[in-house]
């Protein structure tokens, strides 16, 4: 079963008004089971809009979104995905453990089950020792890890992330990237990851989907196969080649073999 199928999706904001915006035009995207897809593009290219459409936080103008074989609205109601944003968005009045428990609580899970799951997820993100802390006592990176643990708490088949490391410093960001890959591999979660960092997109993803703005559309889809996803992977020539390829795709220079990289867009 495919994790996400986006079919001929169009999104118009403020339809019929003078400030009408065509945010997404005719977008098709398929995310395979267990696949990690990065969405990258300039600001205003509609990558966050696409993620919100998959999450059914907003509705499409035309076209359909299918998540885990279900229409997007139903998939949302059945918590078929977990989501994390640029702001951790933790509930400051709940301890770290009770933040992670919240999605389970709203699903009606029992107390013992909630606690066990939360402990398990906190161990996954390496924060077991901080279960009793309040979010305000944690650093930004730790808060973001809690948010990821919370997104994974119901063990959804799909993880949606909207620039989750965007507000973090470079070192924390790289550490969390590696942790995220480990978690996704362990839990076999499919992931759609929105970012505006080329290196982040290439390092994390099996496939980098490049978007362009006005109107938002998908312009390239670049498969990435690194020898390994660790420090060595970050030094590999393939890694730098793929970064170049994505950068050129972003600039509108035709992708593909390097030979025609000079061609005008």
């Amino acid at each position, binding site marked *: 079963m495919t994790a996400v199928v986006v079919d001929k999706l169009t999104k118009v904001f403020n339809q019929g008004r003078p400030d009408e915006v065509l945010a997404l035009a005719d977008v098709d995207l398929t995310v395979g089971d267990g696949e990690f897809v990065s969405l990258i593009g300039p600001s205003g290219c509609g990558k966050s809009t696409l993620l919100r459409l998959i999450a059914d*936080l907003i509705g499409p103008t035309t076209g359909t979104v299918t998540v885990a074989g279900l229409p997007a609205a139903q998939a949302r109601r059945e918590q078929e995905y977990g989501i994390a944003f640029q702001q951790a968005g933790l509930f400051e009045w709940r301890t770290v453990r009770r933040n992670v428990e919240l999605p389970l609580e709203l699903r009606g899970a029992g107390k013992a089950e909630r606690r066990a799951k939360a402990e398990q997820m906190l161990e996954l993100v390496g924060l077991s020792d901080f279960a009793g802390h*309040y979010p*305000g006592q944690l650093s930004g990176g730790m808060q973001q890890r809690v948010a990821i643990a919370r997104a994974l708490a119901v063990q959804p088949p799909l993880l949606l992330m909207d620039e989750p490391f965007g507000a973090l410093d470079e070192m924390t960001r790289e550490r969390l990237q590696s942790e995220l890959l480990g978690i996704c591999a362990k839990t076999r979660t499919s992931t759609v990851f929105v970012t505006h960092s080329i290196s982040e997109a290439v390092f994390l993803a099996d496939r980098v989907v490049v978007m362009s703005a006005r109107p938002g559309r998908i312009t390239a889809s670049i498969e990435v196969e690194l020898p390994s996803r660790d420090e060595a992977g970050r030094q590999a020539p393939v890694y730098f080649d793929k970064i170049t390829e994505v950068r050129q795709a972003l600039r509108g220079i035709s992708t593909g073999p390097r030979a025609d990289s000079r061609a005008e867009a």
Partner: protein
Amino acid sequence: MRTTKRALPPLIFGFLALGLWEVFVTLGRVAPFILPAPSAIGAQIAEQWRNIGNAALASGANALAGLIGGTLLAVFAALAASRFRFLGEVAVPLAALINALPIIALAPILNNMFESTSSVPRRLVTGIVVFFPVFLNLLRGLREVDPVHQELMRTYAASGWTFAAKVRLPGALPHLFTGLRQASSLAVIAAVVAEYFGGLQDGLGARITSAAAFTAYSRAWAFVAGACLLGLTFYLVTLLLERVAMPWKQRLIG
């Protein structure tokens, strides 16, 4: 150690101010009906402390009953007004109208509605006075929800009431306590002043008016001091409650 250091400056300032007051009254030969000396007021407090205590208990009970009743009503009203758009639009101007009424001036009317031995009128006045700051502050807090929280709760497919109970209300607690801090002092003022307009005469307000009527000015001031202390107690208890109710704020400071 740190608390002593922090308490020292205001204490020194307070004693200095009292000393200056004493000197000013004695040297300036200020008539006691204009301003009695602190020593005279102190003597009255020592003499009347049992009466002051009893009157403060009566006024305190009225203030507390009004505070609790008014707060409960305000919390339910704010919850309803934040939940239903129509109610919200109607409630705010209505609350502003109630607030514009000189509530204290209702006291004589309310006193006539009930028997002269009833404490209800004073408690009603207090409750109405308390309602407004609690309602408005809490409503503002309930409406200010972090957009990320809003989206998250949508992804959890949470119902409106679940959202209110798990996110809106706890998120609005700081606003609730801002309102309560104002309300706690107002409650004491309302409970004391309501007695100026008749009704049962067993509280601080009645003692102050009767002492003044008998030209016992230092005694009147002694009861004013009692009212001041009562208001301070209410305020401090509210601060304490705030700390207990929001442990996540406390841990940040500690």
